[in-house]
């Protein structure tokens, strides 16, 4: 690169060859890399489509998922494209409601994990020393608590509540923030030594301002990636609990519950099992694809080393 080129302003400009260059911000670059990643876009489109269809359908027919009819155990047809179950409920309505339910739980879990994990990790990494030691021992404790045991015990208690998805999400969320906390701590340990933090401190910024305005924005990439992975993990955990009969309780529906109900009929009334299973798998894999794409888009260097 010549000296002249580096001194030129970064705004839109014409090169000697007539090629047009446009300056891009950091986020525009991330978006660009993400959009050019076929796998990531497949995941995003599939995810958005599922969210859109289930949202619109459930908004238009809010009670369809529990509406009985006399069409018992009907295979897929024009009236019920995914068939009906043993008490005449439309499977499409149930599946779409289940998708929404799973996402509701997963998004709440991810939000909780991000907030708790970021705060704990940020304080531990920023202050270091005793604060770090106490917070990290707490993280160790939460990591060691056998998640499934607590979930089973609490889920049983929570199962009797009316609107139990909310409690379920709170429980899962309060146990799944440890990974993000460790990650944010590691980021903060290196960020804390950087010059811009020193500069902010020299200008008299308060600790909280340095953490929230200067350091968290610089650690936001890994946080977003892991929030996505937390969403996928929460869907897996929620559907597993529902499958075991400890998660979402009827009359509410979730994909795990639908699979449990349709499992015994998988060979005779395949639509009761195949469609919920396919939707669950699509949901999880699409979220994974998005997460993987985000990781590649946010950290292109690592990508180059690896592939």
């Amino acid at each position, binding site marked *: 690169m010549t000296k002249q080129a580096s001194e030129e302003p970064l705004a839109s400009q014409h090169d000697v060859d007539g090629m047009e260059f446009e300056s891009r911000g950091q986020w525009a670059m991330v978006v660009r890399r993400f959009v050019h990643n076929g796998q990531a876009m497949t995941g995003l489109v599939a995810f958005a489509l599922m969210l859109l269809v289930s949202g619109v359908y459930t908004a238009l027919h809010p009670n369809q998922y529990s509406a009985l009819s006399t069409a018992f155990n009907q295979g897929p047809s024009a009236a019920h494209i995914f068939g009906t179950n043993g008490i005449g409920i439309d499977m499409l309505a149930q599946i779409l409601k289940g998708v929404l339910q799973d996402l509701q739980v997963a998004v709440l879990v991810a939000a909780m994990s991000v907030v708790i994990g970021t705060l704990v990790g940020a304080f531990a990494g920023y202050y270091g020393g005793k604060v770090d030691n106490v917070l990290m021992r707490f993280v160790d404790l939460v990591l060691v608590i056998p998640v499934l045991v607590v979930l089973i015990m609490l889920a049983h208690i929570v199962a009797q509540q009316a609107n139990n998805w909310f409690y379920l999400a709170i429980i899962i969320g309060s146990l799944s923030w440890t990974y993000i906390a460790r990650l944010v701590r590691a980021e903060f340990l290196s960020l804390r030594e950087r010059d811009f933090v020193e500069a902010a401190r020299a200008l008299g910024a308060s600790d909280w301002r340095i953490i929230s305005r200067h350091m968290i924005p610089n650690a936001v990439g890994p946080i977003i990636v892991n929030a996505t992975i937390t969403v996928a993990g929460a869907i*897996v955990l929620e559907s597993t609990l529902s499958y075991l009969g400890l998660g979402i309780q009827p009359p509410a529906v979730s994909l795990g519950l639908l699979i449990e109900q349709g499992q015994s009929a998988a060979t005779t009334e395949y639509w009761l099992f195949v469609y919920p299973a396919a939707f669950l798998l699509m949901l999880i894999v699409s979220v994974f694809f998005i997460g993987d794409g985000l990781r590649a888009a946010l950290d292109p260097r690592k990508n180059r080393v690896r592939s």
Partner: protein
Amino acid sequence: MFTYVLRRLVQSFIVLLIVMLITFTLPYFEPNGILAPAYIVLGSHISPHAVHVWGVQNGMFHPYYVRFWNYLDQVFIHFNLGVSYKQNLSVWGIISLYVPRTIWLALSSLILTVVIAIPLGIYQASRRNSVVDYVATGTAFILYGIPAFLLGILMLQFFSFSWTHLPAQPPDGVAPWAMFTNPLGFILPVMTLTLLSIAFLSRFMRSAVLEVLVQDYVRTAKAKGCSSRQVLFRHSFRNALGPIVIILGLYLPGLLGGAVVIESVFNYSGLGIQLVTAATSLDVPTVLGITLLVSILTLLGNLLADIMLGIVNPRIRVEGSGR
């Protein structure tokens, strides 16, 4: 090293106490409070008097801290985990009956995983972007996303009902060696558990080896004229082993957790099913006993992982013991 292990053991013990405290406290949040198990043990229509008698018999009316202290005394001084509310067995009896079954399941799949996933990961790393690598990565992606119970059901559908007719359920005798009466029955559950762990471990091994392959000493080894096989196994493999050891240590309790689901799907009565049944029927002593066991295993797994790491990679030992 000794003081380090000792300190870690003390820390682990404190964590264990807190986990026990949490598990002990959970039943207090039941709708009927601490007396809730009575309605399950004796039936839902029992008289208040019978509930009261049951409560007195089980020491339910002591204050919270006295009950916890009594429990600790019982466990750590008398090595007695108590008696199950629901089954006419001591908790230790239940554990010793079902632990070998779960360990057999977890251990056989762990061995298979290590034997398959580590060479697979190394192969993928050394032949990066080959067809095998792409296929393995894609498969791992889907297996990584699929919930264990769904994979289990699919295995049953394909290998027990449709294509072949492998037995759907492992033999279920209670006697210690009855589980070996029909070894074919173990193929599906062990295969399910193994596939799930391979997806995880091979991806991890691949990236660990890849990270080592770009190091300077690997280039130096190549420049010296080592064959690529020597570079791969002498220089890269040993250095990539560190992360794998940690992962395996941390994975031990995860394998037990996975066993809960696998046992439910394949109806294999092991510790996992006992735990779920005990939790749903509020059999508090059994839940506490199994939780205690799983927590000890988790903590020991973490500790062993750290110690093994020090042996595999001596550079970390100093750092670790200074903690």
